[in-house]
């Protein structure tokens, strides 16, 4: 992702040597996105085989390790008669609400920090300090402010999403090449047109890096909030239920769902990034 940032800062100069390497890399990535890579499935398959073996050969007691088939069965029964789909929906709703709030706030404050040196000087250090705070240190405070229910959870997810977005946007916008800033001055662009036509497109690779980070952080925070705050409908609640009632198949199902959704988010972000790189190096 830092590659894209370099490509951007080189592009005004447009020297053939500077633009050749990044564009070739972009092309490679573009084709990479089209041809699916099956190799990761090998390790996945191996793990599955190991799991089967561990359960069926009795390496680990069934109490601690369910059969993969039991997990699939549990999924089926949950879908037919249980609440797992509702839980999943609750979790995703919470996740996306927090993500939207945090990312929007991060974009707004990051843009402000990047554009106004004064704001950068006053608020910037606080934002950097906030980033150094371990994410989960916020949980008790947010629980006090917003309660342990839905609001508190969403607030925590929003804080998690906010951090990478504000940093990426801030850096991206304050690193707009001087040549483009000079051009904007000469063209007498208004502040709004400067943001719209120059700063944001130029900062887009870094903003995107921030959003990608936010997607992952927000997901981690979703899991965390559902485990550490009040139990309420959601995948995290089921995870707790699984461990407290010793329903090992449910526990595994919840973990797998968390993992799969995280994986899905990451793939989505990578796809979007491939598109962005293509758009940017067009």
């Amino acid at each position, binding site marked *: 992702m830092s590659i894209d940032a370099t490509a951007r800062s080189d592009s005004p100069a*447009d020297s053939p040597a500077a633009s050749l390497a990044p564009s070739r890399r972009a092309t490679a990535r573009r084709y990479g996105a089209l041809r699916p890579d099956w190799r990761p499935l090998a390790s996945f398959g191996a793990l599955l085989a190991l799991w089967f073996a561990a359960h069926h050969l009795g390496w680990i007691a069934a109490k601690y390790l369910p059969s993969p088939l039991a997990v699939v069965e549990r999924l089926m029964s949950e879908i037919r008669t249980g609440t797992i789909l509702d839980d999943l929906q609750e979790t995703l709703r919470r996740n996306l609400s927090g993500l939207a709030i945090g990312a929007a706030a991060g974009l707004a404050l990051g843009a402000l920090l990047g554009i106004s040196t004064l704001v950068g000087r006053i608020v910037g250090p606080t934002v950097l300090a906030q980033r150094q705070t371990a994410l989960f240190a916020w949980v008790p405070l947010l629980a006090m402010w917003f309660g342990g229910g839905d609001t508190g959870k969403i607030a925590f997810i929003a804080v998690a999403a906010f951090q990478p977005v504000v940093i990426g946007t801030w850096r991206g916008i304050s690193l707009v090449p001087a040549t483009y800033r000079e*051009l904007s001055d*000469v*063209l*007498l662009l208004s502040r709004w047109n400067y943001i719209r*036509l120059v700063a944001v497109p130029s900062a887009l690779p870094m903003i995107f890096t921030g959003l990608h980070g936010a997607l992952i952080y927000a997901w981690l925070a979703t899991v965390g909030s559902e485990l550490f705050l009040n139990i309420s409908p959601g995948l995290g609640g089921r995870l707790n239920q699984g461990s407290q009632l010793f329903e090992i198949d449910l526990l595994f199902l919840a973990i797998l769902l968390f993992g799969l959704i995280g994986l899905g988010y990451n793939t989505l972000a990578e796809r979007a990034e491939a598109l962005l790189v293509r758009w*940017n190096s*067009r």
Partner: protein
Amino acid sequence: MNAPFAAPSPAPAPHARRPALDIRNVSKAFVVNGEAIEVLSNISLAVEAGAFVSIVGASGCGKSTLLRLILGLDRDYAGEIRLDDRPVDGPGPERAIVFQEHRLLPWLTVEANVGAALLHSGLDKAMRRRAVAEHLELVGLEAFAKAYPAQLSGGMAQRVAIARALANRPRFLLLDGPLGALDALTRLRLQEELKRIVAHEGSTALLVTHDVDEAVYLGHVVVVLHPRPGRIAAVLPVPEEARSDRSSPAFVALRDRVLELLGVTRRTG
């Protein structure tokens, strides 16, 4: 040597009018590692409205710096720069520049790049669109309005940059070696276009170039700078004959004179 110079207009009318651009005793220093280094020293130059002034000088002698001062991008200098008898204080719509590299925004189409120059003009959308189309036609790129800069050749991109600079009908056109990066053939063609367009728009033009032929062929006057610090060595009027025919004796003589001033010795014959 640094006496103010009134460049002759294309139609000889050397009245004592106020110069459109008046640079008076301009000196500029940059502070590098705590040490002030003089880049421009006592530059004085008066340019009549409608004149085409070529500026030549060694690399690093302060040509781009001078253009930045005229644009109002840098106001930290000694002396005075007046446009239409008013001191320059910042960029304005009556001045436009074509940078050495095209400096198009890669994420905007050709027409959006040109249109960006009109956002401040107060024209409504339809008028802006018409102005963009007109100027793309002027540089022969109307078919590429929807293309992106990366889909253009270097010469085409530079023509878009010229269209962008002209779109707002600036009275002052600053050209910072815009054709320098092009191959000889494209350069010759664009020189013709530039000459035609500037005459057509009636703007006052300042062209920085390393190409002495280009300076003589396009300028009504050639300003030769000497380096370290940048100062005016000579201001040479270009005879009409030299401007119209690259193989005329007047052209050859003036070119050799400029080369000599630049320290390139040249035997005639």
